[in-house]
């Protein structure tokens, strides 16, 4: 059943609408929410929402509980190719938990948060942005590590990044929910403005795996979920551009790179020269690679999870 959770007037004959699809069956009391589209340039969640919704509706007898699908928290952004919330030039994921008496966008954030509160799990799907390509991963604030990592492992992703607490991140949807007792997993995958079918299919399987493990889905397992690398503490190398130029690479995400391996090069088309070579500083797992070729000094080109001695033989996975 499609429900409208926000309806607010735009200046010229249009309503700003945020909608969800509520799918229920059986006696199970659990409620799992799949949300996406906070950033209008991130589209992988569109396919995952479609697939989850389609599979549940085709096999409704296997559902025992409620799954709610919110495919667009920032519908104006998605429909107008803008990452932020249009007209406010604002990152919607920096204003949670919102304000019931605030501006249109603050009120929207408030009502979204209130609507999600109390769910047994919220899966918030992001897709990186235009600039970076990410392997499928879950990001967890270190404060919520023990609570959320077991759930993240069910999502069939390759990588779980337990990151430091940062004050600026306290205004994200996930933080607002987690800090008030509603578990929320942030998934990042792919690249902005594109859909990677294989990654989305894998994540869809992960969503059903999580539903199954939480007793909400009675369908059988397709395949064993992947065993993700769990990255904690200061184990990520950031490769930032030494020069402004054009970054050329053939590197894929989700691959093991050797220390000293060439990742790519920054070149200058005007002079026809290589400005700098981009070399991996360590043996590890490359989980982020730059997708947008133009770089300035400092632009992020890659992120590599450094293997320690033990992980050199296991590839970082807990076998």
């Amino acid at each position, binding site marked *: 059943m499609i429900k409208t959770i926000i309806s*607010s*007037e*735009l*200046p*010229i*004959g249009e309503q*700003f609408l945020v909608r969800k699809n509520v799918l229920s069956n059986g006696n199970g009391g659990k409620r799992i929410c799949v949300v996406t589209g906070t950033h209008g340039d991130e589209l992988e969640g569109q396919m995952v929402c479609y697939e989850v919704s389609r599979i549940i509706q085709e096999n409704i007898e296997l559902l025992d509980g409620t799954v709610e699908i919110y495919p667009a928290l920032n519908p104006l952004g998605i429909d107008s190719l803008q*990452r*932020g919330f249009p*007209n*406010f*030039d*604002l990152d919607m994921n*920096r204003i949670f938990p919102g304000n019931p*008496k*605030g*501006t*249109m966008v603050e*009120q929207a954030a408030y009502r979204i948060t209130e609507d999600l509160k109390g769910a047994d799990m919220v899966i918030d799907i992001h897709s990186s*942005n235009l*600039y970076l390509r990410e392997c499928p991963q879950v990001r967890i604030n270190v404060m919520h590590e023990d609570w959320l990592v077991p759930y993240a492992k069910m999502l069939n992703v390759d990588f779980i990044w337990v990151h430091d607490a940062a*004050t*600026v*991140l*306290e*205004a994200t949807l996930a933080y607002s929910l987690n800090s008030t007792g509603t578990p929320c997993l942030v998934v990042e995958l792919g690249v902005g403005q594109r859909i990677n079918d294989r990654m989305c299919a894998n994540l869809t399987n992960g969503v059903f795996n999580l539903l199954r493990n939480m007793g909400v889905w009675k369908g059988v397992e397709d395949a064993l979920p992947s065993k993700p690398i769990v990255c904690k503490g200061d184990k990520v190398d*950031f490769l*930032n551009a030494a*020069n*402004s*130029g*054009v970054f050329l690479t053939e590197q894929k995400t989700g691959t093991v790179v050797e220390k000293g391996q060439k990742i790519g090069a920054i070149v*200058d088309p*005007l002079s026809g020269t290589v400005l700098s070579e981009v070399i991996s500083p360590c043996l590890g797992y490359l989980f982020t690679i730059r997708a947008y070729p*133009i*770089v*300035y*000094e*400092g*632009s*992020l080109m890659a992120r590599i999870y450094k293997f320690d001695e033990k992980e050199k033989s296991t590839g970082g996975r807990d076998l």
Partner: protein
Amino acid sequence: MIRETLYTMKSLHRDDFKIEGFRFGSGEKTMAIVGSMRGDEIQQLYICSQMVAQLKELESQGDLDPNKSILIIPSCNPYSMNVSKRFWAMDNTDINRMFPGYDQGETTQRIAAAIFKQLEGYQYGAQMASSYIPGSYVPHVRMLKTGYENIEAAKMFGFPYISVSTPAPFDTALLNYNWQVWGTSAFSIYAGQTNNIDKKNALLTQQCFIRFLKRIGVIRKPVKNVGYDSLLLDEDNLVRISAKKAGLFTAQYGAGDYVDEGATIAIITDPNDGSVLEEVKATTSGYIFFAYNKPLVFQHSLIFTII
């Protein structure tokens, strides 16, 4: 006066990115003034450029204390200004959400780090600010409640108002938050407008700067202008008026006007048939602190705050 290039960065195809600074005097780091950090902060740039001209004039007449050093950076972001983008055009990041910066980090973190290195250690710091909500403000000094805010010093400007506000989580990456935490008495200066030059408020703001510089001993000759006995406001206590309807917005009053309770201060009309959808009433008597100034209004948009 010394004109100095404080930071440069090469770009792929554009001329180099440069941040220019103007230094007056030497010795004790007394005051730094920062103009635009975003590409649409034109009023902010204008006021700083006028301050450079005025201080140059005062210096040439021997009216500045040479032992007190002043730094003015009219624009931290000429690249965005030259392509009419509010934020860093490549990735839409905001330099003023990157402080204290990181010199090994992403581009705008590096720019913020370079700016912060120049600005650290000044006794007083003023940044010409703007808000993400479009509108005009009564000129005022704003400070975040960090526990380090120096209200007594803010009074030396003689602006009509001083406002204080509780920082939100993402405010911790603002220049002024970090300036305060690192020991500078930091002020955000709202000079009315953002995109346009508003000469009246620009002049008022320049006079406030001159008054401040006189009171801290930078300007040695007598200054003949009177200031306000600033009223201290807590932004949490301002009366907020939001649009009940969306449509075409025409204001009857603007920032700085006094309104009586019950007065019609704006009208929202239907964009198609012109019928009146809402007569916006003042819910209290007082001076308008903020007034929305765009022709299209959204439902629930903040359109006025009244003191």
